[in-house]
């Protein structure tokens, strides 16, 4: 038979606690999203009205389709808004708890910084910084392991895309200094 006695165990030391307080309820986010969508629908609808949303001799004008889609989107989000407002007291579902929010931001903020760094330093440098930094600071993994993994991964990506497949990525001062 199989060796089922060997167990694979992976720990998650920074896991979000289960009893963490809620930051914001799903209902509130739903209301917020519906309002945003409504605003988007109005903006796009207006723009399409300006482009021309009527029906001329040969069929619809360019703005016709998107205009009515904006109307449908506005209708859908208005319905959602009312439904969310009515259900608000009935079901206080949690959108995100404080501990979860912290963990999500721990990925989102580095990703945001990574995009910024890509714009100015080029993708490969940004990638090295993101992987090494994330492993070290968020994952609490040994520094040498983090640096080595980041370097290896970035190098593999560079060889795969830049050298083998000729897919050119944004580059920065480092690549310029190295003459690539």
């Amino acid at each position: 038979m199989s060796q089922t006695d060997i167990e694979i165990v992976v720990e998650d030391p920074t896991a979000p606690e289960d009893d963490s307080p809620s930051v914001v309820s799903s209902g509130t986010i739903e209301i917020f999203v519906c309002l945003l969508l409504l605003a988007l629908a109005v903006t796009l609808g207006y723009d399409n009205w300006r482009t021309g949303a009527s029906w001329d001799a040969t069929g619809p004008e360019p703005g016709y389709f998107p205009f009515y889609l904006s109307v449908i989107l506005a209708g859908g989000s208005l319905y959602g808004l009312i439904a969310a407002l009515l259900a608000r007291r009935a079901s206080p579902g949690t959108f995100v708890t404080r501990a979860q929010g912290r963990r999500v931001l721990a990925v989102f903020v580095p990703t945001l910084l990574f995009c910024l760094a890509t714009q100015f330093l080029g993708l490969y440098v940004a990638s090295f910084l993101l992987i090494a930094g994330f492993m070290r600071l968020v994952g609490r993994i040994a520094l040498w392991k983090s640096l080595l993994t980041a370097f290896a991964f970035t190098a593999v990506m560079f060889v795969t895309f830049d050298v083998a497949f000729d897919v050119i990525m944004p580059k920065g001062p480092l690549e310029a200094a190295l003459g690539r």
Partner: protein
Amino acid sequence: MEALGLLLHGFAVLLTWKTLVLMMVGLVLGIFVGVLPGLGGPNGVAILLPLTFTMDPTSAIVMLSCIYWGALFGGAITSILFNIPGEAWSVATTFDGYPMAQQGRAAEALTAAFTSSFVGSLVAVLLITFLAPMISSFALKFGPPEFFAVYLLTFCSFVGLGREAKHKTVISMSLGLLLAGIGMDTVSGSLRMTFGSPELLRGINFLVAVIGLFGISEILLTMEERLALRGHAASISLRVVLGVWKDLPKYWVTLLRSSFIGCWLGITPGGAIAASFMGYNLAKRFAKEPASFGKGRIEGVFAPETAAHASGTSALLPMLALGIPGSGTAAILLGGLMVWGLNPGPLLFVEHKDFVWGLIASMYLGNVVGLVLVLTTVPIFASILRVPFAAVAPMIVVSCAIGAYAIQNAMFDVWLMLGFGVVGYVFKKIGIPLAPFTLALVLGNRAEDAFRLSMIGSGGTLKVFWSNGLVGSITTLALLLLFWPVIDGLLGRTGRRAAGQNDGATKS
């Protein structure tokens, strides 16, 4: 049979070293993303798509579809060994798969899962081989009105048959269609919804949106959960495999039933998730002792896995034959076709025979190779889970960014990807489905073009959508599906009244 000859030709296209190597690479990468928590079929395909941009279309689709098969296989590993479904469609596999692993029958359960996946895919591929050419040659007679009617049918069936709240499906779909319309209008050439921004002139690229919606948002969602896990390790010996295979004929009814359910739900946009649950529930209902399900019955693994794979594979049928994807992953593959310069639709079977039959042949070969590969390498893949997520997450972010940038060589797209990542995260958490959005974004322009061409052809009258029997019945069916919840509600009310009387009769 003509199809058989073309299929053999497809195998001939496929059997080169380069393609076989790509196939293996695709399968390994696919199993890898299938095993990793928070990454699945659509995400894997979306993230790895950029790798294929410089390949010829046939190699590219072979590799991508193998990633998809691999991900389908990989999902079962974590369900059985760790009780963590790697994919939503493997949830039903955990019901009996994990108890089997706890009883020390992990190898048996894994063999059952892989074998039934193989059977399910095989049935679906056979269906594609013989049905897809027929449908596509029939669809060659389609004009713009027919095509618009088919698109309408797809959209309406999502709204009418989807499980989510209707207004959320409508929001998701209309938003997708709207965003698809941004940029240059293909019929008149005028600009729409660009607000003077040169970046928006190109429009919102479908693949950029998908990488954000599925890749980045999954990372955010995964981080929210406790990532600690504890599971069984297993290696599969040949004796176990042969033992399971010897018993296979006993379960032919279950396998056949699940394959049928899977194919049906795959072609209609029901999807693999619904198929796996339906397969499981029906197997339980028809079993002699339903109570033994959930305690480690091998049929409880066969039924959902067969259905999920049959569905995942047959979702490619409408994509190949009509250019309409039957699932999120199929939609991404469709986006890939456009990047490689192919025009999806029935003409594909005429203009790109090598491509289509190479793809179909790769489905046969990929599943055979995949089966052997997973059976022999399970221990390695199970141990991938030991790699900390803190190392995997940033690598996925980098891969996503590379993917998003490579599509149009635009930094704007990387920011767009990040934005869609947030949108995907929020939408998933408040229950707005992403599949209709994806579908609308990839089909939006084609649907609109079809509509406007029909209007130009007919001189601006909507009667064209009922001008002959075919287009008329498709349009009517579409509207029927759109209002299906209302109709079902009315029927259900009268039905329930009758059932209520029956219940009362039996109780008293």
